């Protein structure tokens, strides 16, 4: 009799390392992109607190503003800003890749789709700034 295992190959299946996202730059970029969502959530929390502060009167709002000036919060928000911009850029570029827009039977190149995204970004940011800063 043969030893059956001799002909049933055992194969080697490497377990994916816990730090797989450190093995290649592209993976790290991916994880950073995903982690950006944490900062998105963080700033939503800030905004909720802000709404509460604004609606409960000038004193509370002043307190809130002082809190924002603390070095910890400033650092945190600077990092958040970096990540949220990173999110915006990757988001616009990727949605250009994910979308197929055809004009006259030809697929529009990614840039043609990304460009309006960036334009919309500029307009929206401008509008928000204008409303807050005017007069």
């Amino acid at each position, binding site marked *: 009799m043969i030893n059956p295992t001799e002909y049933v190959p055992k194969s080697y299946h490497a377990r*994916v390392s*816990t730090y797989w*996202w450190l093995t290649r730059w592209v993976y790290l970029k991916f*994880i950073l992109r*995903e*982690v950006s*969502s*944490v900062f*998105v*959530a963080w*700033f*939503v*929390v*800030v*905004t*909720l607190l*802000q*709404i*509460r502060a*604004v*609606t409960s*009167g*000038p004193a509370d*709002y*002043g307190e809130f*503003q002082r809190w*924002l*000036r603390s070095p910890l*919060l*400033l650092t945190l*928000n*600077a990092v*958040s*800003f970096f990540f*949220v*911009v990173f*999110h*915006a850029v990757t*988001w*616009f570029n990727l*949605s250009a890749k994910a979308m197929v827009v055809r004009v006259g039977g030809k697929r529009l190149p990614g840039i043609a789709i990304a460009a309006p995204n960036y334009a*919309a*970004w500029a307009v*929206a*940011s401008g509008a*928000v*700034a204008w*409303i*807050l*800063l005017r007069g």
Partner: protein
Amino acid sequence: MNKRSNEPFLWMLFSAGGVISALLLPIHILLFGLAFPLGCLDAPSQEKLIHLIKHPITRLYLFTLCSLPLFHWAHRFRFTLYDGLQIKHLNELINVFCYGGAVVGTALAAYLLWNIR
């Protein structure tokens, strides 16, 4: 149809949240998080802000700005936990934490914005 999952719904919220976060959050953080506290620009007064907030459109705007990005976070964070930390077996816990968080945040936003007199 019930063979298909409810992923489309979550994905829709995630995508919408992604768009909103990308379009609006950078400027909000830049202004409220950095420029105003650092004094680079003059911060709008509480009066002006309360005036703005009372407008229904602003309320709707703020509601969207808070709610959808939270669902965006919930979706992405869920997968980051699955893949980055390889803890997919904690699936249910993760889902409750992420989407639950987003729902709570949304409710909070609604509550705050509703109660402005």
